[in-house]
């Protein structure tokens, strides 16, 4: 492995070189701790800043979609807006309701931020930039990610407020419903790549067909279907519109955040964006080839730049979806998960298995392989779509 490492450009290893330069003087056990700490600090800084500017980008894009310029007063083109918001949040009064469970009320934002930050540990940000190399990284990712649901319920329960509690119940129902399709859409990738390690999955997507088309999972029929299911479930898991029922402003005040103010509120917000970033990062890893370049000619650009570009593109789509779609109703939400996404993901598992089994097929059989896979991806979608839409006529407004 050492020969290609030397041959690859300096930029690719630049973060590691910088880290080693900082810590090379320390004795061995200390150096390991220092290296880990540097990783954590860098992750916190990068994703903290990403969170800050993502809120700005979101407001800018939403504004543009609504033909407004968005925030443009603080700093050049509004670039300092997130920091103004941060200072505002820090200087606000921190209110704890008298009847609240003070300990849980304090712990909920801490826990949700902690759990959502844990998920960043296993995502491969670049060829050499994996904070923790876990053999079961995917499993760890989903385990840490589901723990945020606990914190949401903690927040709702400890606030001692009916809106917060109702919202927390909704959130639990929603997150548990969508945990299933999220996992089921990740399983085909694990099946195809034959590994639970995130870096292993990225390695499995290396190489190009005809020297042009990358071997990304999203470019296979089952991969595209899985990606769609994963993306929709990720929207829901990160409480994003159109699945933002837990904090539906018009129905539940601010959902489980009703009794939070000041910086605790900001922490929840941060955790939501961290979760969104982590799920997008996982989607990039599983389906969009991780840090792999889309064309062989573009491999000179460092791998982490490719990962960042894909991550930002996905986040932009998240914002775009938020700007477009109205919120679902609770029954529509759960029906969509259980009657549409879960069966689709299950059928897709079969499609992925077929794809893996027919790996050796060549020539005309290759066309058969594609046809069967396409049929397995599109057929259930059409059938389930018909079923989902049946019985729902045009809405007639009697009172308006």
């Amino acid at each position, binding site marked *: 492995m050492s020969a290609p490492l030397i041959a690859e450009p300096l930029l690719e290893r630049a973060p590691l070189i910088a880290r080693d330069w900082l810590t090379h003087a320390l004795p061995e056990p200390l150096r390991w701790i220092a290296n880990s700490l540097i990783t954590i600090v860098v992750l916190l800084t990068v994703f903290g800043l990403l969170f800050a500017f993502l809120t700005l980008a979101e407001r800018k*894009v939403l504004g*543009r*979609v*609504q*033909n*407004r*310029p968005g925030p*443009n007063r603080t700093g050049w083109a509004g670039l300092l807006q997130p920091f103004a918001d941060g200072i505002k949040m820090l200087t606000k009064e921190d209110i704890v309701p008298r009847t609240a469970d003070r300990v849980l009320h304090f712990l909920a934002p801490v826990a949700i931020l902690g759990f959502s930050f844990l998920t960043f540990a296993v995502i491969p940000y670049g060829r050499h930039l994996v904070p923790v190399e876990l053999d079961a990284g995917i499993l760890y990712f989903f385990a840490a990610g589901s723990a945020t649901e606990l914190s949401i319920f903690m927040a709702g329960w400890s606030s001692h407020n009916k809106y917060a509690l109702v919202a927390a119940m909704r959130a639990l129902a929603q997150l548990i419903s969508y945990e299933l399709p999220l996992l089921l859409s990740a399983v085909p990738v694990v099946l195809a790549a034959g590994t639970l390690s995130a870096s292993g999955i990225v390695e499995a997507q290396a190489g190009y067909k005809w020297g042009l088309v990358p071997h990304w999972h999203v470019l296979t029929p089952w991969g595209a279907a899985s990606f769609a299911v994963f993306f929709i479930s990720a929207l829901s898991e990160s409480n994003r519109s159109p699945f933002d029922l837990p904090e539906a402003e018009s129905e539940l005040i601010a959902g489980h955040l009703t009794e939070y103010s000041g910086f605790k509120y900001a922490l929840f917000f941060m955790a939501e964006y961290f979760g969104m970033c982590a799920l997008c990062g996982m989607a990039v890893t599983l389906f969009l080839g991780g840090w792999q370049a889309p064309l062989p000619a573009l491999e000179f650009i460092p791998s982490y730049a490719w990962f960042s570009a894909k991550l930002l593109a996905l986040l932009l789509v998240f914002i*775009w*979806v938020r*700007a*477009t*779609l109205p919120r679902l109703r609770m029954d529509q939400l759960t029906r969509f998960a259980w009657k549409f996404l879960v069966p689709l993901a299950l059928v897709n598992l079969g499609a992925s298995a077929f794809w893996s089994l027919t790996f050796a097929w060549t020539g005309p059989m290759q066309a058969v392989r594609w046809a069967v896979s396409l049929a397995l991806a599109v057929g259930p*979608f*059409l059938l*389930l*779509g*018909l079923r*989902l*839409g049946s019985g729902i006529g045009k809405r007639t407004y009697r009172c308006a």
Partner: protein
Amino acid sequence: MLGIGLLQGLAVTARNFLGSFHDPKRFVTVQYPEERTRLPEAYRNFPFLVSESAEDPMGTLRCVACQICEKECPPQCIYIEKSRDKKPDAGGRPQIYPAVFDIDIAVCMSCQICVEVCPFDAIKMDQVFELAATDRFGGLVLDRHALAKPNSYFQQVHPAEAADVDERLAAARRAAEEKARAAAAAKLAPPRPAPAPKPPAAQSAEAQKPSPPAA
């Protein structure tokens, strides 16, 4: 097919997003301190005092300190002190004028009742909305110097209403002049004969009064 509507929706938002960059006409908002929209003529927020001339606003206030507005004001935000002496008004007649005329715009609810009750068209509604003050007790109480604005300003902010008022005042002034001239003429001329008997039209109108219906 399922999902087509979603894609159409995404296309609409994408079109708006991209369109907002190359077509400034799409913008529904203006960048306020730099750009301003023209306020609608009917917009009115707080009262001001109309003076006839811009050069000497205190000398030409239409207000005669009759205190009707002070009494009618529902939140009682107007405070008036009458003058002891008299000054000639726009028509040249000596009139009392307000020595003190204060409006607390922190209390004013913009109901416009003072404008409606004023028999002299002396108080009208303004359009100035940038009234922030650093002193919330003194800064928001406007005295007569701050309240007085010339009639030309009124014509500018509420052209239709101002034209109406000007016409009315001019007619009143003409009528007064006519009356004065007639009075002067009456003083000079010998007394006129008694008025002629009622014209026949009035008589017939009286005759056409509805009679009580027959029982």
